[in-house]
């Protein structure tokens, strides 16, 4: 079976491709701050323009860059509605049972969705123009100064490194499970929302269960290779709780990444 890393890194020679990965990473973080701060239509317009420039600089086809958005619109719809219908406002436009639609809620919902969309697209552009190796190296460099204020840099770098390794592995597995459940009758592409929602469980549960199993196995392998966490030897009947714990965290992180990028 062809090993295509879930349509993430696409090699190229654009300006963005050649830009220092650390610069890109820091740029993304600054963008994140800018996005959170944005609140006016003018602010959003500026950000969207910026994303447009990034897109041009990346050499990526437009369709490819916004691909993750197509997969997450359901998620966005839920978030939008949650905000629009549950925001406790003094002067609601319309109420019914527990729902209360308000202007503020609508604006809030739009805010959240727009911010998420911008960050997702920017992140996707970054990941498409930066190879996994470069990303890991950039993280390492980024976190290095933190060790002077006693933050366990190595552990974080390790977590990122493992997560990056597992993302394509998990993505492939998600795809396999989706196919297996489709043959069993699950309807992921059905027009009816109810069918799609019912098909989520047969997809999500196996992915999570298998991911935890992987985390367990990885933790064991790490222990076998002399990993001791922070130098503290945890004694117990089986593998160190600490290593397994940490394994679970990173797998969760990887799953979230996969769900957003692939589902």
């Amino acid at each position, binding site marked *: 079976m*062809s090993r295509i890393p879930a349509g993430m890194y696409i090699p190229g020679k654009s300006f963005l491709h050649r830009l220092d990965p650390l610069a890109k990473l820091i740029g993304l973080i600054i963008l994140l701050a800018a996005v959170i701060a944005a609140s006016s239509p003018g602010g959003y317009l500026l950000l969207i323009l910026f994303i447009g420039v990034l897109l041009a600089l990346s050499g990526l086809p437009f369709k490819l860059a916004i691909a993750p958005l197509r997969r997450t619109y359901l998620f966005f719809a839920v978030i939008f509605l949650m905000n629009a219908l549950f925001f406790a406002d003094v002067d609601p436009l319309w109420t019914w049972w527990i729902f209360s639609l308000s202007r503020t809620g609508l604006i809030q919902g739009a805010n959240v969705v727009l911010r998420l969309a911008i960050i997702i697209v920017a992140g996707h552009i970054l990941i498409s123009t930066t190879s996994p190796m470069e990303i890991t190296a950039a993280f390492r460099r980024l976190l290095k100064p933190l060790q002077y204020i006693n933050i366990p840099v190595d552990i974080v770098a390790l977590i990122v490194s493992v997560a990056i390794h597992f993302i394509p592995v998990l993505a492939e597995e998600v795809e396999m499970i989706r196919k297996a459940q489709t043959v069993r009758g699950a309807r992921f592409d059905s027009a009816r929302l109810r069918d799609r929602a019912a098909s989520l469980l047969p997809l999500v549960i196996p992915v999570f269960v298998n991911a935890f199993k992987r985390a367990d196995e990885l933790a064991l392998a790490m222990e076998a290779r002399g990993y001791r966490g922070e130098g503290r030897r945890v004694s117990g009947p089986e593998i160190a709780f600490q290593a397994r714990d940490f394994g679970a965290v990173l797998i969760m992180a990887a799953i979230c990444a996969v769900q957003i990028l692939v589902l």
Partner: protein
Amino acid sequence: MPIVLEKASYTYAPGTPYEAAALCDIDLQIADGEFIGIMGHTGSGKSTLLQLIAGLITPSRGKVMIDGCDINARNYNRDVLRKKLSMIFQYPEYQLFETTVEKELAFSLKHSGLPGKEVKERVRRALEAVGFSYTRVRSLSPLGLSGGEKRKVAIACALVTEPKILLLDEPVAGLDPRGRKEFLEIITRRNKAGTTIIMVSHDADVLGNYAQRILVLNQGKLLLDGPAKRVFTDIEKLEALKLGVCRPRKLARRLKECGIPFPQDIAGYDEFIAAVVEVSKKGGMSHEPDTGRHVYSR
């Protein structure tokens, strides 16, 4: 013809730098009740071919027809396909998710439109087909079972729809010899009862013992297509493609090299044993072997 592929082709990730032709102009006809083995090294398109037949992917060119209908046509009802066809992937136990074994199997029948009683009955039959007692396992949690039991449940999930066509992608991967034999016996029983079996496998011995017809894929093209015996006879070609050759065939060649008039169209184990018995009864060698051993006849 139940399964017909006409110039079917599939390209991976078209329009990206990862674009690759996975299958090229496949013409194939598979009749009811056949037991087909598919061989080819990794990347030859074996899994892609199965997925095309299963309707999981749409061909970039060409057609996939099942029972006379183009399964990718706009008006084709996929539910019809799901009732006729089941597929078992590699490590199928990874797909289990329900709270009880019964519910797990029932999931495959969710859209079948069958009444509850019939569903229960099919679940019972499927579990018994894999060697479980319905009453003992029906309320157990599938995720809490042992590895071997999980796999049996996964297989039962594919059998519960009582499919006409069963697709298998490396189904015995990770099983020990005993597990492998058990599984293949279940499959053979199904085949004898009329189910068409299409099995992808790396294990040439398994294919040699069970498949009647073998397809060899190489770089997306269908290279060889014929009865197992005939395909395995062409041992040099298979080795040139770096494909496994079943042991009975390899041994047949070795024995011929030693000067024994051993039949070369051997694919299965039982055939091999029978051939040794036969040849030993006739006794003697046709000529002095190169190894210089003494020749004597009975």
